[in-house]
């Protein structure tokens, strides 16, 4: 169970998740310290290990930069819940082992205590005592996520299976 940070905004693009000027690094903590700073300058300070980020439609649109989900994960976020995700972000998040889940209708507010069941596509709001139905993920993605990301998936399988 973890705390939700809700930004009910559509089209949060990769430039707002991690501006291009900060992406030229392989240093995870440097990425984490700037995550979402143009949207909320205090986000990196507020978020605790395991917390959940909640956003509106088309989260992660824009560039293909994998630094976007990496920065979110490095900041401590355990799951991103959005109404919809941009295609590349969705795929990148799963490849680097950051669970993402699409929930069209919910009533989550910042501070609510949330848990997520990815396999069954269920999000539970413990503060409000509600559950929300999520879009079910393709099995290929669940397999990659269960392996901990695409790197581990390929180490385990040696190829796409």
């Amino acid at each position: 169970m973890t705390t939700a940070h809700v930004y009910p905004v559509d089209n949060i693009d990769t430039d707002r998740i991690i501006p291009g000027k900060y992406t030229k690094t392989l240093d995870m903590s440097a990425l984490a310290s700037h995550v979402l700073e143009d949207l909320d300058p205090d986000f990196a300070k507020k978020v605790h290990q395991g917390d959940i980020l909640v956003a509106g439609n088309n989260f992660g649109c824009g560039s293909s930069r994998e630094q976007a989900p990496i920065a979110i994960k490095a900041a401590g976020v355990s799951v991103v819940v959005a109404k919809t995700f941009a295609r590349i972000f969705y795929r990148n998040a799963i490849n680097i082992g950051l669970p993402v889940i699409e929930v069209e209708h919910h009533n989550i507010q910042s501070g609510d205590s949330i848990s997520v069941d990815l396999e069954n596509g269920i999000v539970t709001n413990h503060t409000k005592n509600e559950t929300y139905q999520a879009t079910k993920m393709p099995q290929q993605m669940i397999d990659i996520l269960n392996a901990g990301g695409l790197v581990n998936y390929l180490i385990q399988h040696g190829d796409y299976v």
Partner: protein
Amino acid sequence: MVYGPSSKNTMNQTISEKIISQHAGKPVKAGDIAIVRVDGVMATDATAPFAIKAFRQMGGKKLWDVERVSLIIDHASPAPNETVANLHKLMRDFSAEMGCRLYDIGEGICHQLMVENAHVKPGDLFLGADSHTPTYGALNAFGIGVGSTDLAATMLTGKTWLKVPKTIKITLNGALKKGVTAKDLILFLVKELGVEGANYQAVEFTGETIKSMTLASRMAIANMSSEMGAKTGLVDPTGLDLWYPFEPTFADNDAEYVRELTFDVSSLRPQIAKPHSPENVVDIDEVLGTKVQYAFIGSCTNTRLEDLHAAAQVLNGKKLTSTRLIIAPASKKIFNDALKDGTIQILSDAGATFITSGCGPCVGSHLGVPGDGEVVISSTNRNFQGRMGNPKAQVYLGSPAVVAASALAGEITEPTE
């Protein structure tokens, strides 16, 4: 996995379904999950370092095919600081070790180089670790943008997995008015569909307007299908003029589309995307007179020879006064062609500043970041807040001719003949 004979004779297919079927070794339809062989991959200095790291983590010792892997140093090129310099060095070392192709500083923007050097060809399924990989749809190729880890997996295996997209068909009819370009057309379409209007889907562009377009114009259109969230944007190959022989892939007459849109574009005005979204598009008339301090002609959308010609036509014999104009030709080849035909001289005489062929100001990495409160008119594809490196700047998008005319007037202006 066994790759069977090509499934070219399967009916009811979109261009995407046909190309993916050929690469999956079996007929596929929208919604299917397919494991496909990939014809080529590329990564840039923004994505290759992570891809190299992931490749090594996967236990990668050699590439699946050195001829099919390209690395490009274009996003922050030449290196603006020591961190980036070391990432560039890492790419050079990796390419030397693995024996794969590397385009170093100044060669040009990744997508231009892939097309110009025929590393991607019609009918290919190509993966780029860059969101504008749909540009290759101009060539009738299935290009998709992926992240670094996906790319690393293909560098290792030569394959990827994907969900076969549904397709939106856009038919464009009518001759564009003078001064209205492919860029105006695609800005108009981004407005019509919205930035997530084609999310997870492919777009096919067809119709009379498209069939008579140059490769450069087709590239501008396919390029910005990314701005609709599209997985890829495929242009009807009718009229496609290339310097090598190729076999076109057409959609079947009875192909199934999720949406079909038809537009008569004969009365289209020049289009401008206002800050801070490429869907925030209006007819130029609404923003005429907006003062601009900085004009940029660059990016994989619009800095090919025809774009430089359009700018030179506006600026020939004129002199910039209040507004600075920066130009980054899409490749060294384009720069050289424009040098030989006198275009560079005209633009330089007018007061334009030329910078390294590459991304630079488009992605805000260096070579021309706008100041606080400054207004920019740019020929690029994105104007998200902070995109050009400063969230306090206002970025407007337009065609190269509009950018040149606005630079000259110091305010958003329509090019006149």
